[in-house]
């Protein structure tokens, strides 16, 4: 294996050129379109990027300009990003679920002058805010569907036309592109990555070429990848985890990136591709587990019997594997048997069979979920890091996986804990700062260390343990500290609970609002012969409340500290949703917002005389229409909790 550190002297476009020389004819990207997987080799990839770069320059994009990317993951997204970077412009990812208003704010904040959208849905958002973004000169789109009426206006540009412009420039000046990318410097800012913004408008973190490439090299030092490995690109491109792979890992190792047909089909496509490694937020792993449970539940008795038997064996074996200890021969045999008979075919059904490693990051994952995945034979590991350090600072090593920690630092990464208990890190992947926010940048990089804002400690084995956001840790009225997220994750381990919001700051006891999982509880209700119509109806059923109550009793019984026990709970009539601003784009809870929005429910949770309460639910449809529905919510007090 060659030393890869020479790659650090490259910019991303230069790295692409190097990759073409190494494995030009190999498949770099694959996209499912019209039911068929279409291949792009590294040569094709390079050709498209060159056309885009030359085309963009011709239509007036200059060094230092900002190009925003909004849309689902498609190869063209990468062509645009790296094309812009070739000129020395900066690409910036915006989540495809962002509402027009917020897009206008982001475009203004980031001084974006050109936007790439994948389809009419995204373009229409820009049409709506066109008056507010006069600095945007071009809107480039990929899917011509529904865009017929837009063609007369030269504000819009079809990507095929851009390719043509670029091809013409290349024919006239064949040397131009190479000369252009030669001017790039690895320490130039190449991409703006939005921080998830649990508080207010997202901040654009300025990433350099070296940030990404370094990450690609360091991860593969820990976990080797072959250039025949497959990766499925189903995370939003605006998220650091996806860029880390497409800009860093893929080009440093030569793996193939696969693009699903559409967001809705990504789970099907996962099955067809069978990737060798994957990244995801805990939510994805929770969803997949629910699917597995549902499948088993619907299966016939023999399957169920074998599954229930061998999952226990798998769990036992997983404990040995995670700690790297030697397994007794009898266990090794039975776990092998379970793998062959039940678990391998099972994970093959979901497309996880070839997976060598799965990583989870972004938020904490319940310990039970770890054991579950390790038991079915998926090597799930925790990573920890921030956008500002290209996603990863800490990572579990194979044979040293512990569900209560996030592992050890990556090579070339230094870490320490500040006096206040904050986690600090330093590496070549740390960003330059936030765009136009000097004050916040100074706070972030104070003393040359990246300040994470998370509370944590390093244990005797050198593993990092993350407690919670420094700002999120709560204290009860006696001043005892607890982490709401930690308790929420325990609740969420119940298959029936999708989301939970823990309260109790400066209060005598802990209470919570619960979101039931519509699929699992819906199936359960069906089996019990309980009829229901909507989510709201289902969550109001007293039988469902009993079911949740049992789950809460179970969790209270296993609480580490007495003051962790949940005193009162209520089932919320609606699912928390990104569109209502209750979750961030990456699916994290916006605690403060939720607390204010449901203030009356919060008050009722701490008023033990309230057993039932009328609530008015307010719904907004995608097109802006609204309706109000009345419902009754019940509040439950747990016995024996002080």
């Amino acid at each position, binding site marked *: 294996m060659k030393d890869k550190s020479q790659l650090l002297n490259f910019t991303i476009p230069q790295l692409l050129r190097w990759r073409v020389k190494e494995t030009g004819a190999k498949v770099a990207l694959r996209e499912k379109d019209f039911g068929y997987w279409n291949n792009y080799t590294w040569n094709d990839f390079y050709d498209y990027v060159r056309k885009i770069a030359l085309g963009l320059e011709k239509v007036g994009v200059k060094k230092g300009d900002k190009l925003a990317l909004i849309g689902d993951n498609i190869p063209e997204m990468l062509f645009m990003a790296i094309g812009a970077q070739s000129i020395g412009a900066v690409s910036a990812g915006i989540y495809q679920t962002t509402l027009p208003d917020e897009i206008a704010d982001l475009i203004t904040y980031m001084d974006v002058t050109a936007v790439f959208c994948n389809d009419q849905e995204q373009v229409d958002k820009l049409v709506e805010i066109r008056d507010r973004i006069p600095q945007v000169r071009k809107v480039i789109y990929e899917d011509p*569907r529904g865009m017929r009426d837009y063609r007369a206006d030269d504000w819009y540009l079809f990507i095929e036309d851009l390719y043509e412009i670029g091809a013409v420039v290349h024919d006239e000046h064949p040397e131009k592109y190479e000369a252009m990318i030669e001017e790039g410097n690895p320490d130039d800012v190449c991409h703006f990555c939005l921080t998830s913004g649990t508080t207010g408008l997202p901040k654009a973190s300025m990433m350099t070429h070296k940030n990404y490439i370094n990450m690609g090299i360091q991860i593969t030092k820990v976990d080797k990848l072959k250039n025949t490995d497959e990766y499925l690109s189903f995370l939003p491109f605006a998220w650091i985890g996806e860029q880390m792979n497409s800009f860093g890992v893929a080009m440093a190792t030569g793996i193939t990136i696969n693009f699903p047909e559409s967001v809705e089909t990504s789970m099907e496509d996962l099955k067809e591709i069978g990737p060798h490694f994957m990244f995801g937020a805990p939510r994805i792993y929770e969803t997949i587990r629910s699917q597995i449970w549902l499948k088993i539940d619907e299966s016939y008795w023999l399957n169920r019997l074998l599954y229930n038997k061998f999952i226990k064996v798998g769990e036992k074996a997983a404990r040995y594997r995670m700690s790297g200890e030697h397994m007794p021969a009898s266990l090794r045999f039975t776990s092998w048997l379970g793998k062959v008979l039940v678990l391998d075919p099972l994970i093959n059904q979901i497309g996880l069979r070839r997976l060598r490693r799965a990583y989870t990051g972004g938020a904490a994952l319940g310990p039970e979920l770890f054991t579950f995945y390790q038991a079915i034979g998926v090597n799930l590991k925790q990573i920890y890091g921030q956008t500002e350090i290209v996603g990863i600072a800490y990572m579990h090593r194979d044979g040293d996986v512990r569900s209560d920690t996030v592992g050890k630092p990556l090579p070339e990464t230094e870490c320490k804990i500040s006096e206040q208990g904050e986690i600090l890190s330093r590496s070549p992947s740390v960003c330059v700062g936030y765009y136009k926010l000097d004050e916040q940048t100074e706070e972030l990089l104070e003393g040359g260390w990246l300040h994470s804002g998370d509370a944590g400690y390093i244990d005797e084995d050198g593993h990092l343990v993350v407690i919670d956001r420094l700002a999120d840790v709560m204290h009860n009225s006696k001043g005892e500290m607890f982490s709401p997220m930690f308790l929420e994750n325990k609740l969420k381990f119940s298959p029936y609970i999708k989301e939970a919001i823990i309260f109790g700051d400066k209060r005598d006891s802990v209470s919570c609002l619960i979101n039931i999982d519509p699929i699992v509880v819906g199936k359960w209700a069906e089996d019990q012969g309980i009829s229901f119509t909507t989510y709201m109806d289902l969550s109001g059923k007293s039988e469902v409340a009993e079911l949740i109550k049992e789950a809460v009793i179970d969790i209270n019984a296993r609480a580490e500290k007495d003051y962790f026990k949940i005193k009162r709970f209520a089932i919320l009539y609606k699912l928390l949703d990104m569109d209502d601003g209750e979750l961030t784009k990456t699916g994290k809870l916006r605690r403060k917002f939720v607390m204010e929005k449901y203030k009356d429910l919060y008050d009722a949770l701490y008023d033990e005389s309230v057993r039932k309460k009328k609530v008015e639910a307010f719904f907004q449809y995608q097109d802006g229409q609204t309706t109000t529905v009345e419902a009754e919510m019940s509040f439950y007090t747990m016995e024996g909790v002080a």
Partner: protein
Amino acid sequence: MPTLKIDDITLTFGGLAALSEVSMDIEQGLITSIIGPNGAGKTSLLNCISGFYHPTSGEIHYKDNRLSKASPHQVSSLGIARAFQNLELFSGMTVLDNLMLARHQKLRYNILQAAFFSGKASREESKNRRYVEEIIDFMELEPYRKHTVGNLSYGIQKRVEVARALTLEPSLLLLDEPMAGMNIEEKEDMVRFIFDIQQEREATVVLVEHDLGVVMDISDHIYVLDFGELIGSGTPEEIVKIPKVIEAYIGED
């Protein structure tokens, strides 16, 4: 010049007149809606156009072809396709198979070629598959491609029904209550599809629909039927001012 000309047609069942002396001009490339209360004769009219019924008197012409005596398969080979109100799909087959089957009319190979799946048969099939995939993409049915139709939600089944009609590459598409039984979001999606069918696929659309809000929003021209008689026609703005229409829909005050 209208693309579909309905000239003074009457349809009687025994002594009952389902349609009496109805005339309509359906213009090329527009969305024309036919509305009316239950039993007004809307579906009977579509049945006359698509050849299920033959009018007792009167003529129907599509471009230069006479439809009044044509059989359904002749009508469909002229490029007229229909999506039914009560879904006409094979519920035990997948979405993909339903759509492939719907294109059998376009297949050009003989039984021997089919039996050995040789040269022409396999070429034709892959060409058809490509076309069907374009329709799947157009109607955004990718997640359901391999799902059995019977297991899909009603809203999606309706979409499959429209997709099935589209696989015939129609120049005139008859939609019989495509939005019945749908929720608001599904309706909005369907409206977008109808617009795209008109604009991207350059089809003339005839829409029979109960949801007046939708009809008023998307139609270029509206015809109103009541008890088999045409009681009004015009643009949406004109329609709402016709007293007879108001009476038929809202009742006298």
